[in-house]
């Protein structure tokens, strides 16, 4: 009996810490918050985008605490610098194995929309519609549903170097008046090409007009300037022979006749072209405004120095197009359709459009872009940016392009022909015919005109 009592006492003694610990744990569970870890993924340089989301989460956490919600948002970050196609493929594969990031950057929203991998943001956007700049969701809207969030509003524009104009004898008043003349439609694209020629002829620059050395949407803007159409109101790809012929003729002439574009431009690397633009060797350039940070850096200029020499203007109207314009080309981030926390992710995006618009302004100022959120555009960070402080008016002329299926193929074929035209290895008529065959072969649902 004694033995039994001793054993019982010992057992109770051993069990005490277990119960004691259990008793302490209970209030700890109540005090500890449920940590929701979201995976956020980004590609390439502009990490101010995911960082805006991460910082907005801190504010949402504070709000949840005030509201007595027992949730704390944390992040697992995955920032990469790989080819965009490869990155987006990885996003698709991650969805297939149920390991997709909750929030991620994307290069081709159309592909992800088609695959049904993006969460529908329509209700959140509608609830905050007054907070956004008009039409920023057009490229990611399908059948009335919105699938991605634009953290910025970079526009594609024409840049030119004011020093080039000074060098050919323009006075300050004339130089200052030129953007206004383009804006009013008095100074047309044909005049601009003639100006590029004049600058080269009079020694104001080595080259008149340059562009990116790879396939991209910038060329489509010039096609638009020349009255060429590449999509209809439903977002169907349009093959506009007359418009393309005009564009190809201009491309050929610029490199082979007027020689304002170097014939070997497409064999040069980005750094060479950026340096040419930054140093004024190239008078004008067309492309996204955020490229100017690369241009300034290649020419070893600060943003302030670059802004002092460079003008950013609308794509002028031409004989074939009625109005000047810029193209708004926001980057997009999306929420996975497979996320376990759709409400929280939507709350984060809503926070960015409201109380955390300054975080988007921080990103926009960093990449020299306007913002998709109205309040961000009024933020001092954007107002103080030397590149964008004087060009807010461009937003009034911004057009947005819808999702166009087959556009990647169109851009790739267009660029192939541009390379050959600039080298003088094909003719505009042949380029149009060859491109048409490839589009007929590779893209379904195209309108030919």
């Amino acid at each position, binding site marked *: 009996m004694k033995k039994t009592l001793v054993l019982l006492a010992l057992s109770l003694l051993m069990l005490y810490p277990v119960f004691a610990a259990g008793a302490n744990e209970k209030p700890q569970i109540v005090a500890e918050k449920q940590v929701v870890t979201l995976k956020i993924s980004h590609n390439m340089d502009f990490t101010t985008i995911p960082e805006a989301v991460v910082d907005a989460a801190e504010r949402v956490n504070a709000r949840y605490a005030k509201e007595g919600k027992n949730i704390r948002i944390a992040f697992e970050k995955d920032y990469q610098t790989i080819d965009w*196609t490869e990155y987006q493929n990885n996003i698709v594969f991650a969805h297939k194995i149920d390991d997709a990031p909750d929030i991620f950057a994307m290069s081709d929203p159309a592909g992800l929309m088609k695959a049904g991998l993006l969460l529908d943001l329509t209700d959140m956007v509608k609830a905050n519609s007054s907070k956004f700049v008009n039409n920023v969701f057009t490229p990611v809207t399908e059948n009335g549903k919105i699938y991605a969030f634009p953290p910025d509003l970079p526009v594609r524009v024409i840049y030119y170097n004011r020093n080039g104009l000074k060098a050919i004898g323009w006075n300050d008043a004339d130089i200052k008046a030129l953007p206004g003349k383009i804006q009013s439609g008095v100074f047309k694209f044909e005049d601009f090409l003639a100006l590029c020629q004049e600058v080269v002829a009079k020694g104001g620059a080595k080259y008149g007009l340059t562009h990116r050395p790879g396939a991209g949407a910038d060329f489509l803007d010039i096609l638009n300037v020349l009255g060429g159409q590449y999509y209809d109101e439903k977002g169907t790809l349009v093959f506009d022979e007359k418009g393309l012929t005009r564009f190809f003729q201009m491309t050929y002439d610029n490199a082979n006749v007027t020689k304002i574009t170097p014939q*070997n431009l497409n*064999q*040069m690397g980005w750094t060479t072209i950026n340096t040419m633009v930054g140093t004024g060797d190239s008078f004008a350039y067309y492309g996204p405004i955020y490229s100017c940070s690369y241009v300034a850096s290649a020419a070893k200029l600060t943003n302030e120095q670059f802004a002092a020499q460079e003008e950013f203007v609308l794509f002028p109207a031409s004989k074939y197009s009625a109005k000047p314009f810029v193209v708004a080309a926001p980057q997009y981030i999306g929420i996975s359709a497979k996320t376990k926390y759709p409400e929280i992710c939507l709350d984060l995006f809503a926070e960015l459009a409201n109380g955390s618009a300054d975080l988007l302004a921080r990103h926009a100022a960093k990449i020299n872009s306007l913002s998709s959120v109205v309040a961000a555009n009024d933020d001092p960070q954007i107002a103080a940016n030397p590149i964008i402080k004087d060009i807010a008016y461009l937003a009034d002329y911004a057009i947005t392009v819808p999702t166009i299926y087959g556009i*990647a193929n169109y851009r790739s074929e267009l660029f192939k022909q541009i390379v*050959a035209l600039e080298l003088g*290895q094909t003719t505009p008529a042949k380029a149009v015919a060859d491109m048409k065959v490839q589009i007929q072969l*590779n893209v379904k649902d195209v309108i030919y005109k």
Partner: protein
Amino acid sequence: MKGKDLQGYAFLSPFLILVSIFYIAPAILTIIMSFSSLDGAFLWEFVGFENYGKIFRDPNTFLILRNTILYIVISMAIIVLLDLFIATLTTYFIKSDGWASFFKSIIMIPMITPSVVYSVLWIWYLDASDSGFINSFIRFFDTDFVSVNWIAKYPFQVIIIAQVVVSLAYGAIIFSSAIRSIPDNQFKAAHVDGAGEWEIVKTIIIPNIRPHIKFIIMWETLGLMTNYLNILLITNGGPLNRTEVWALSAYHKAFIDQQYGYGAAISVLLILVVFMIMLLWMFASKSKKEGEE
């Protein structure tokens, strides 16, 4: 089946399993994919023979096929001839082992250089701008020289030379070893008979290393058919499609245009051709063996 055979197969089986997993299964998947319209959304929609039809309707197909054949035949001919030349020179004519090894080491440099570095060097050499190496070099002697856009003007020649330089070492070393294994008394007998050096090369060296020449031809053909890395990095198949070859075209369709189904169909045709060449090779080797027996 004999016990020895069984043992052999047992030892081979792990490799066969690995080959099945990493080669045969993906090849079957590629064949299945070639009948789909798989694109960037990665949704499997089967379209029958549409991708194959597209290959034959595409006017660029003939050009790409022509480029591929020319690229293989010209590169291979130059590679084999230069391999023979270098091997004979460094093994038969240069008697000093030290010098022979030195020359062989030099020609090995492009082979052991990563393709990206090698291609960047070529791009820098042939840069179209005034600061390009060759343009600057010529301008050093001729101040009026106008810079040439070498890669755009002579793209096919550029990719062939680049490929030849990188491929030289392998064949040269194989031939060199083969020449070294020719019994010395054959050369001595030829010298006693008063044979000239060219005659020795023609009647002793080449016949003795014929199997090695055949092997290198086969090896280079398969390599040139499937390897497109240097072309991708130097010309990317351009300008237009002037240097687009079959394997590169599969890459472009699949990974640039994101038409994975179409790219797979192009790859399947390539696999078929490679397979047929291998069968022909096996058949020819077997016939020769039987003839000898």
